[in-house]
């Protein structure tokens, strides 16, 4: 089967103004099958976001190639939706107008776009909040709007960059369950970036562990054979989850310590 997204031998080296070089990612290969939910975990500063920026076409890799359903990627990845870690909603548009934005850019009929957006707001639990501006919504609500904004375009590949990291733990688990529910209703390929191993295991079909930066690369891959549908809060208590967590953590631990030691030096 042709993978939905294939990163082949990707290396990303940043050059700073004073001529310094920093290799964030080195010779990384990652494939995501259609409908597969893959999480990428790693210590802070290991180039997880860089990998995602390459996959969506915001960043050109120094070496390597990206294939989207078998075709080489040039420019922005039109088959991908992207959920940002930080605020990305257009602050001058209401929640509803934010959700319609993508359809509007694609010149979809306005009344049809409006109907779809309203139904998406309902689906993410914000039925009565369409007229509010982003600053009038809570952090969790803004994430829901962002989710609806991305999913309304029905992308084949969904890239998520620690989307829930700024939320409190309860809101976060609610959002994770909602994400799983939306995803299982219409299975697309997902690349989910996080530094939270529990989040990664409870959501994914497969977890990829990146080494500490600089020159990060995948150092472990684990199939998560937990049954679906899952409840992210409950599944954490099952023996298999704990077993998998222990297994992956053994790989991750040394990398986290390395990354911590590097931060101490700086």
């Amino acid at each position: 089967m042709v993978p939905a997204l294939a990163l082949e031998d990707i290396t990303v080296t940043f050059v700073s103004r004073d001529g310094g070089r920093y290799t964030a990612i080195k010779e990384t290969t990652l494939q995501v099958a259609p409908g597969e939910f893959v999480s990428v975990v790693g210590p802070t500063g290991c180039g997880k976001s860089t990998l995602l920026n390459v996959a969506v076409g915001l960043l050109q890799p120094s070496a390597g190639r990206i294939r989207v359903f078998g075709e080489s990627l040039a420019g922005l990845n039109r088959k991908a939706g992207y959920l940002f870690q930080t605020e990305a909603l257009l602050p001058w548009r209401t929640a509803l107008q934010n959700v319609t934005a993508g359809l509007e850019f694609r010149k979809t009929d306005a009344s049809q776009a409006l109907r779809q957006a309203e139904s998406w707001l309902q689906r993410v639990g914000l039925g009565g909040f369409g007229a509010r501006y982003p600053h009038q919504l809570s952090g969790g609500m803004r994430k829901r709007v962002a989710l609806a904004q991305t999913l309304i375009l029905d992308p084949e590949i969904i890239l998520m960059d620690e989307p829930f990291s700024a939320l409190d733990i309860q809101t976060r688990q609610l959002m994770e369950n909602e994400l799983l529910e939306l995803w299982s209703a219409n299975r697309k390929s997902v690349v989910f970036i996080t530094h939270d191993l529990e989040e990664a295991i409870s959501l994914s079909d497969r977890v990829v562990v990146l080494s500490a930066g600089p020159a990060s690369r995948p150092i472990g891959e684990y199939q998560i054979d937990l049954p679906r549908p899952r409840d992210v809060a409950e599944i954490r208590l099952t023996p298999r989850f704990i077993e998998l967590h222990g297994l992956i953590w053994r790989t991750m631990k040394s990398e986290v310590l390395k990354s911590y030691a590097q931060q101490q030096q700086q």
Partner: protein
Amino acid sequence: MRSSSSNKTALRFWQVVLFIVLLAIWHVATSPTLLPPVYFDNPHKAAFFFGEPLKVLARTWEWFSSGTIYPHLWVTLLETVLAFVIGTVLGLGMGLWLALSPLASALLDPYIKALNAMPRVILAPIFAVWFGLDIASKVALGVTLVFFIVFFNVYQGVREVSYTVLANARILGASERQLLRHVYVPSAMSWVFASLHNSVGLAFVGAVVGEYLGSSRGVGYLILQAEGTFDINSVFAGIAVLTAFALLLDWAVSLAERRLLVWQPRGGETEKM
């Protein structure tokens, strides 16, 4: 809620009281009969230099009741609005262009800086020669004042667009044109509105200074005429009328601002249910 509104009423009351007290001091100090002359040798000299508030009020009243002020006021306001609109549109266009085109920006940078540093009021005589003594020369002066304020704010506004918001709009499928319309312009507009009070004020300054330096109509012209005949009361009346209308314009701007910037958070604002 109640206490804040009654506080506001009390504040208004004391503001009015202060105004009346200041007028009373002015009246007592300049009246030829109320106080013996302290500084001037002649009791009428204080009134000659500083005017008399009652006569200023009478003159203002006379202007409005006889209607002689209206054509002048109309001309001044027309000049202000034209200068404001033209200056804003030019500033917006240039600001967007230079902010989005690094080459043009680098090329024109020293010229923009020089033009901004120049005391532009001095251009008034040149504009009078170029555009005549009618409203065009005043509008031109106002435009040079308004343009730079709007220009720098738009430039800043475009530069400060959040990288994430921009990237998000791109990934959602926005073309370059759509980015301009849906991201850059709205972001720049919030900065333009932040500078609106300044630019309306300067449009007004451009109009009045232009009239003062050479014209046949307008409130600035009225003040110039009164000065020529040492009619200090009319000068003060002209200033009072100008001030009142400047406040009115400022209020209109606040109103427009509140309408158009609903999406911006205000300090301490609670959620509307």
